[in-house]
């Protein structure tokens, strides 16, 4: 369960979020809104990358700011640009890198990394230079690097922005099949089929919070 209680945030003088109250028990939730609406900042608060200036965030009973380590074990975060998330030269090493603090043996880390890559269609790429993968493969690799940690929650910040249509579809299918609770920040409304709830943000405030159809109708009117 993710909870935002009276959450506000400002960067200097600029207010990016104010009075956000949300309880999120649903399996599939999306934050949508125009650029600068505060949705990415809200998502970053879930695993403590950004601390709220006001109010508090609670994830499975834990405070992401004070108990960041425990929260980050539960929450995986996927960024827009996979190139910025790749830390190791090859795909297999990059996924295994996520497990380096797990206390597992090197062989076990490699085995688990290979298993996750195989499950998501990158089985033949373990020794492949990660930066030479296609955009879609890189984003899948970044996803694998999160999933190998078996998080309970996955937060994705505009993960399909840099992908072509085919890779977007493939990524959406992958997302659909995940057991984790997924919080998706997106402009891509096609990704939201099968979602339980959509939160629409505008100028740092929640202006609609509903099932996808009515929430998106509100969003379309807002941007029309």
């Amino acid at each position, binding site marked *: 369960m993710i909870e935002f209680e009276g959450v506000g945030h400002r960067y200097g003088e600029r207010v990016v979020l104010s009075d956000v109250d949300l309880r999120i028990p649903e399996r599939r939730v999306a934050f949508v809104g125009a650029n600068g609406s505060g949705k990415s900042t809200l998502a970053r608060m879930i695993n403590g990358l950004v601390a709220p200036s006001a109010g508090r965030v609670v994830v499975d009973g834990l405070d992401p700011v004070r108990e*960041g380590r425990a929260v980050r074990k539960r929450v995986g975060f996927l960024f827009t640009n996979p*190139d*910025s*998330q790749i*830390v*190791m*030269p*090859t795909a297999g*090493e990059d996924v295994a*890198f996520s497990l380096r603090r797990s206390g597992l043996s090197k062989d076990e880390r490699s085995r688990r990394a290979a298993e996750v890559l195989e499950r998501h269609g990158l089985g033949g790429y373990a020794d492949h230079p990660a930066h030479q993968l296609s955009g879609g493969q890189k984003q899948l690799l970044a996803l694998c690097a999160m999933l190998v940690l078996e998080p309970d929650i996955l937060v994705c910040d505009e993960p399909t922005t840099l992908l072509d249509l085919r890779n977007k579809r493939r990524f959406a299918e992958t997302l659909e099949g995940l057991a984790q609770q997924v919080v998706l920040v997106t402009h891509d409304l096609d990704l939201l089929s099968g979602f339980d709830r959509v939160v629409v943000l505008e100028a740092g405030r929640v202006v609609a919070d509903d099932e996808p159809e009515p929430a998106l109708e509100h969003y379309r009117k807002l941007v029309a």
Partner: protein
Amino acid sequence: MNAWYEPGTTVVHRAPAGVKFVALLVLAVVIFALRSPGWLGALCAVAVLGYAVARVSWRRCWGLLRSLGLLVVVVFALQWWLLGLDSAVVVCLRIGAALAAANLVTITTRVDDLVTAVERGLRPLRRFGVRPNRLGLLIGLTLQAVATLTGIAAEVREAARARGADRSVVAFTVPFLVRTLRHADELGEALAARGEGDR
């Protein structure tokens, strides 16, 4: 060390990463202590032999020769002009031996193995405040940064060329710096999201 791991089963590939790393450090010290062109030439020959034993593909060797060759020619010309022929030969042999050996280590060693070996080797220094995890990560990121910065430089150069500014220093430097800093920022955030900042 602008190289990627090339899988293999040769004795060089199978040698423990820690042994290769220490051997490289020792070799670097020896190279910079030696002044005899004969001995330095012999070390270059040993490095070349290492490539043959590791069965490194001609494509990879050619890539190294091209980048190393250009560097050696520039340094040789400068050294000859400034310090004379003897000094130019010694410096270039040192550069050739050191870079060829370092490149051989990265071609035959997974970065993951190298990082693990460094972390294991530095573990006894924990009592003095050394954090092996951080230093291991630093080595991994440094190797990775070479590829990332090369990619950014290529894209920026291409963009400058598209605007007809391929000879402009500003058209290259400004976007290169901006993108590098942005990459550093995003990488830091991604590492924090993966729990790397947590103790």
